């Protein structure tokens, strides 16, 4: 059953860099709070030979604004905080009339052994 409701979300700036020992680091810093129509949240489980992979998928509908246009153009540089978790943007669609943008977001739980 699909669920659609308005929820507050935070949009974060994502910075990728390397630390002193050469590890890749990702830093999220809050940019602004907004409210999105959250729809079709899905939680899927994939079991491979040895591990379970939990994967949550979320669709967020936002107004088309200067800020969401910026996210649309560089979606790798932004993430979403929703219900206390950090969601990365997998896909963004503009509506034809440029009134809305739809963010598809995903979040991977740690891989758990079967």
């Amino acid at each position, binding site marked *: 059953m699909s669920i659609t409701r308005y929820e507050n979300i935070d949009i974060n700036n994502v910075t990728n860099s390397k630390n002193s020992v050469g590890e890749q680091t990702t830093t999220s810093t809050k940019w*602004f*709070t907004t409210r999105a129509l959250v729809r079709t949240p899905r939680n899927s489980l994939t079991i491979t030979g040895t591990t379970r992979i939990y994967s949550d998928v979320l669709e967020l509908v936002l107004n088309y604004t*200067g*800020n969401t246009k910026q996210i649309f153009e560089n979606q790798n540089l932004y993430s979403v905080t929703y219900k206390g978790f950090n969601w990365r943007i997998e896909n963004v669609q503009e509506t034809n009339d440029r009134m809305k943008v739809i963010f598809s977001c995903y979040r991977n739980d740690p891989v758990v052994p079967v």
Partner: protein
Amino acid sequence: MPSNLSTTNALGSPQNPWSYQKVEQIDRDIYTAWLTLDEITQQLNLIEDESQDTYLKSLELATRMAIEDYLGMSIKPLQYKAYYQATNNSMGMQTSLDLPEVSQDTNNSTGVTVDYVKYYNMDTPPVLTTIASTEYFYDPTGNKIVINSLPNDINAFMTNPVVVIYSLNSNPIGTYPVIKQAGLLLLTHLYNNRSDTLDGRLTNIPFGVSQLLRPYKPLVM
């Protein structure tokens, strides 16, 4: 049968004895925000997304003007110029000038300020001459200006030789939550529908802008 409802002994003068012939809106506050950006961004689910603030401010002004025009009341100050006829009989007589749009008095402040009352005299070309403010007063009970006596040299050839310029101060209805909600509904409509044409067909919601504003719209008899 004697009746105290008889009009023959009524005190005061009736309304509309001297109705305006023409009215012009000559000044209007088109800069001061009525709905706050916080209220608007909450309504539109933008919250802290400030990238459209300039656009939202212009929409807000359009919304406020639409509601002022619908109600015939000023949420922010307005100034009008009204024109009146004069006849030979009116010269030297006490006269009432009916005002087309008024704002109500509230919290001991007046809703209407009469900036000046002037008339065109018989000179050629006619000279717009000011009537001293001690010669008239605004009557908020009848929405009119009462002039003690009109001068005798009012131009007899001009169509509307008596001119009143007056200002409406902010009406208290602008602070009513129901009026603000109507403003937010209208603003949401304008924000979401930016084209004059549509593929589909829009329908009004129940208890929309018109229903919220209707009780505050004065009846025009």
